[in-house]
């Protein structure tokens, strides 16, 4: 599994960092997504998908 994020779409809602803070953080400057782990291990696959689904701006893609 590979996670991609698009900072230009991100609206800083924080849903990803709330859902899995091991995978996602937010920039202190403008709150946009910071990807901590591009390739999540099996234990984080479900939360990665959940974060992509919850993202209000569609800024997270899972492939």
């Amino acid at each position, binding site marked *: 599994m590979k996670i991609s994020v698009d900072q230009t779409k991100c*609206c*800083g*809602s*924080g*849903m990803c*960092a*709330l*859902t899995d*803070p091991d995978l996602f*953080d*937010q*920039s*202190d*400057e*403008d*709150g*946009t997504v910071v990807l901590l782990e591009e390739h999540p291990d099996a234990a984080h696959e479900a939360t990665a998908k*959940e974060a992509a*689904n*919850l993202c*209000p*701006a*569609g800024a997270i893609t899972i492939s």
Partner: protein
Amino acid sequence: MTEMISEELISDQLPTTRQNPFDPPAEVTAIREQARISRLKFADGHLGWLVTGHHEVREILGSPKFTTNPAKHHLLDLRFQGEVPEERRKVEPGMFLSQDPPDHTRLRKMLQGQFTVRRMNQLSEWIGTIVDDQLAHLRSLGGKADLVKEFALPVPSLVICALLGVDYDERHRFQDDTTKLLSLDSTFEEAMAAMGRIQEFMRELIVRKKADPGDDMISDLLATGEPTDEEASNMALLLLLAGHETTANMLGLGTFTLLQHPDQLKILRDEPEVVDNAVEELMRYLSIIHFGPVRTATEDVEVEGHLIKAGDTVLMHVPTANRDPEKFPGNPDELDLRRPAGGHVAFGHGIHQCLGQQLARIEMRIGFSKLFQEFPDLRLDVGPEEVPLRTDMGIYGVHSLPVAWSA
């Protein structure tokens, strides 16, 4: 596709009375059961749309083909909007909730860094102290009190005032006017006069913060040099209003709900770790905006087989969408603090999703947890049918919540 048109329902007669105080109006639930997207007559004669299905609401709120600019919307309610000349419906600088990209993006970005999950988590201890102090105040009142006046409203007000750098002792300068602004019974003149006074207060605040900056969000925002004074003033106004009305109503109505669902309250007491999910479920279950948000299509869009034409205004109905059995299977009309409630649209969806949601979550988690820990025998002091409901306000909740406990 043959479109369903609600014959009885016109946009200025949308119900705000909930037959059961916690459920969406039955008339709108009945519409969702027949058609998740239906035609709705707007007050100015426009034939627009009413959206009650969860994924349809998400799709529209997430789409760039709809504008949030109120000047583009057909009129929901002539009582307020019919008297407004078109040029006055122009969005004021800084009101990012009513703006589309790129203006919205530029303004929201100036604030996003202040409301991150990490930053809000760092406030937990401080918010805990505010809640503790307010609960001590509540206890000092003896054995009974109005929970809204003494707890649900003060907690978020104290928090947002401190974060923004607004003197809490000046709250009389905006709280009464906020009530007038949000009252569905206010005339247009009354609402505009109230808005004018709040704006004047904010403009004064910006002048003061520029002369004497503090350790607060408004001073930080001004220090960036990015917003104009007028933008900063309106941005601060949005944060101030959104920061206390919404969370206060969730705390008040949420407490009423839990007291009326003792089995669920027991779960919250016995399993404190449930609180994070409990907050999501209460948000879903109660959905405190009566109706909305509103969008207008900027080009033709097909949504689930319905052709929404450019210029059509669409009214989302969040309370019914959050009870959609397609998204929340089982019994969505039951309060279940253990239900996976994630993905509700109570904070909205799309780029306008609530900026302060991570703050609201923490206030509610700490607020509900500590309230029921400290007051294990908290109970209603009136019959449930006597609790005054905010059917007359833009945001639902309880006007007051008389409670009692063993002193």
